[in-house]
């Protein structure tokens, strides 16, 4: 518990996490408002449509999570941390836990904020969260954000360098996974095993909307299986990162 | 010319530009070969298909361009630069020029490399570059990379901070421009004025439609033709650079 408190103090005593959280929430919810306001008979507002921008929030939170590690390496405070807590695995686990928890909270705020502003703007639309698919789509966002943050922390520990870690995370998440689909036939076979395609499957499976991009892929798992698979990849990468950090000179 | 030489030396004497260039070329061309190898009757190979992965090269080069500016701020060498060359505009224009030229070269290498490797893998497919649309699609890549690099240098100068500049550039280019399309009706009206949509229009207009990913903007109702789109994209890139230069001139280094 002490270590969690330490990492909480560290995270909240600098500005960038606040900026990232504010940006993730304000822009995502703001865009949800813009989307909701422009829905009409042709493009009807549904629960799923209100969540259309949540990926933006996720990548911003991934940047925050990676920064939580790379800034420690950049400013040498990681060494101060390892002097105060020589058990590196515990120190880094505590950091991961704090960052993931925060990401989860932001995810829920983003999801319910987007949904809430949609219901406010279009009170007549059917925005009740009834089915389990709809619950996954909204409440599942926090889980996905938390796991994505774990992955980002792992990449941060491995790369140690802000520019590299942020670029790898963003280019991979936003570009590589979708561009791979351009490989004829083989592309989709690969895509169905990619982590963020599976996290999208967890959130959007069974939710029909005019902006649903994930149809088409023949996933090896159902939505919850996809979540477990996504979690396994994130946690697996974290384990690798912890082993590397333990062996490496600080 | 001296200033250009100075910036060339600075750029090439650190490792990250080499890494970025190698990554941009190797991965893009490698993916092009993977795509070409997997084409068949159902998904035929053509000139446009060989170029599908070039956006990856572009974002990597944008990261390189932004780093060229932000690392100078991070390590304080920007002050050494301004001491050596008190005319800040001259120094920064030289930097932008060197980076843009390099980006242009990488763009051409990426484009013709992707095309060439596809030709090698599928020698029987007609990959002749005949129409102007096909020339734009391949040879135009260098121009797009150049302008994107200018824009990235401008953002780097304005933000001065690696994490911020890289995140803004990547999130904007790869995510925001696409997600805006999700706003019903209004989204596409906005998108037809967004810079990277125009970069795509320049390269893909009148060619084979790009089916997915960041190229999806080609279905937009653009206000300009392909060359007009390029001019518009260039105006935004250069405009942002001018803003950055003015800010850098006024600001304490």
């Amino acid at each position, binding site marked *: 518990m*002490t*270590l969690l408190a330490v990492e909480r103090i560290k995270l909240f*005593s600098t500005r960038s996490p606040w900026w990232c959280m504010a940006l993730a929430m304000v822009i995502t919810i703001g865009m949800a408002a813009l989307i909701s306001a422009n829905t009409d008979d042709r493009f009807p507002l549904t629960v799923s449509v209100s969540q259309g921008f949540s990926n933006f929030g996720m990548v911003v939170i991934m940047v925050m999570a990676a920064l939580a590690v790379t800034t420690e390496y950049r*400013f040498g*405070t990681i060494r101060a941390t390892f*002097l*105060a807590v*020589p058990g590196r695995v515990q120190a880094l686990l505590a950091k991961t836990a704090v960052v993931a928890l925060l990401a989860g909270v932001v995810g829920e705020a983003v999801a319910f904020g987007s949904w809430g502003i949609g219901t406010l703007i279009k009170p007549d639309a059917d925005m009740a969260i009834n089915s389990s698919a709809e619950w996954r789509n909204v409440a599942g966002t926090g889980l996905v954000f938390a796991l994505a943050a774990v992955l980002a922390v792992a990449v941060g520990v491995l790369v140690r360098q802000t520019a590299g870690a942020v670029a790898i995370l963003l280019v991979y998440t936003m570009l590589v996974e979708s561009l791979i689909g351009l490989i004829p036939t083989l592309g989709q076979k690969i895509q169905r095993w990619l982590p963020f395609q599976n996290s999208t499957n967890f959130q959007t499976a069974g939710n029909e909307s005019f902006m649903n991009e994930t149809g088409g892929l023949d996933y090896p798992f159902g939505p919850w299986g996809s979540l477990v698979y996504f979690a396994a990849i994130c946690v697996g990468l974290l384990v690798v990162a912890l082993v590397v950090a333990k062996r490496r000179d600080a | 010319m001296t200033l250009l030489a100075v910036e060339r030396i600075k750029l090439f004497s650190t490792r990250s530009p080499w890494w970025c260039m190698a990554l941009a070329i190797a991965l893009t061309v490698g993916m092009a070969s993977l795509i070409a190898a997997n084409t068949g009757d159902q998904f035929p190979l053509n000139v446009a298909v060989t170029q599908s992965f070039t956006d990856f090269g572009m974002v990597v080069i944008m990261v390189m361009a932004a780093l060229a500016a932000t690392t100078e701020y991070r390590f304080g060498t920007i002050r050494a630069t301004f001491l050596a060359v008190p005319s800040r505009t001259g120094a920064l224009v030289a930097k932008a020029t060197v980076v843009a030229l390099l980006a242009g070269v990488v763009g051409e290498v990426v484009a013709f490399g992707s095309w060439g490797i596809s030709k090698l893998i599928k020698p029987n497919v007609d990959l002749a570059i005949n129409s102007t649309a096909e020339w734009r699609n391949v040879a135009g890549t260098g121009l797009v990379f150049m302008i994107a690099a200018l824009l990235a240098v401008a953002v780097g100068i304005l933000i001065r901070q690696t994490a911020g500049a890289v995140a803004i550039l990547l999130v904007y280019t790869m995510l925001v421009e696409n997600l805006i399309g999700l706003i019903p009706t209004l989204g596409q009206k906005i998108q037809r004025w967004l810079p990277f949509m125009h970069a795509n229009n320049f390269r893909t207009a009148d060619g084979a439609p790009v089916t997915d990913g960041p190229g999806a903007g080609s279905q937009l109702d653009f206000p300009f033709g392909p060359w007009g789109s390029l001019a518009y994209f260039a105006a935004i890139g250069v405009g942002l650079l001018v803003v950055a230069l003015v800010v850098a001139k006024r600001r304490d280094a």
Partner: protein
Amino acid sequence: MIEAAGLTKHYGTTVAVDDLSFTVEAGRVTGFLGPNGAGKSTTMRMILGLDTPNKGRALIDGKPYVELKRPLGTVGALLDAKWVHPNRSARSHLRWLAKSNHISYQRVDEVLEMVGLTAVAHRNAGGFSLGMAQRLGIAGALLGDPSVLLFDEPVNGLDPEGIVWIRQFMHRLAGEGRTVLVSSHLLSEMAQTAQDLIVIGRGKLIAQTSTDQFIKDATEDSVRVRSPHADKLRELLDGSAAVTDDAVDGALVVHGMDPASIGELAAANGVVLHELSPTRGSLEEAFMQLTKESVEYHGA
């Protein structure tokens, strides 16, 4: 007490620290001396468990650093004053350190007071001058009231007032019975700060001795003598002392005989002396002499 036994660290084919063994006693300030690049920082990082030695080990009060339960309560270290987040306030920086080792926030305010940073504790550390950053680093080292303290080049870049302050501070800490290891590449600085010396060059131990002994061994006393009858004096001295000529002004430089004996010898033989002055070899010269072989980079 710090014990290093056979510490060895390679980086690729470069050997940074080579089979280094020494002990640092409590209650004294021990200087860790060597030219730049001699391996001082690497050694300190290995003592603190940040770098893993390829061979050998370092123990603090009989235990490796990583096995200490509340490390800040045993060891305080200032390796680099820049190891703080620039956008974090001095107090926040010390608070997270304190929290990690169950140290009260009251102690944070105490150490801030001790190093004279109370008034600026709320300010971001990024805006601190080097002297202030150094004081913040020392505050961090003192946080757990440790019995062992390590300082890596603490006076680098400090103004004279700051140097005196740190020097007195270290003497006080040693006076309280603590183990104090402080590195420097300046022998003149160490001569005024440290009671014991560990001298290394190219990662190897050159000497471990008291500072006085080191200076005595390293610098040789001699006497400058000028006389109109230099040749006669040279004959008289021959056999009982070594005599050389000063290249600049032709004075005799006598080794191995004290000024009084030389004066008496001259008077007994009616030799007029114009100058009779004892000289001491300079510390820096002696240090350069010792480490000449082991300096990593030479000027042209």
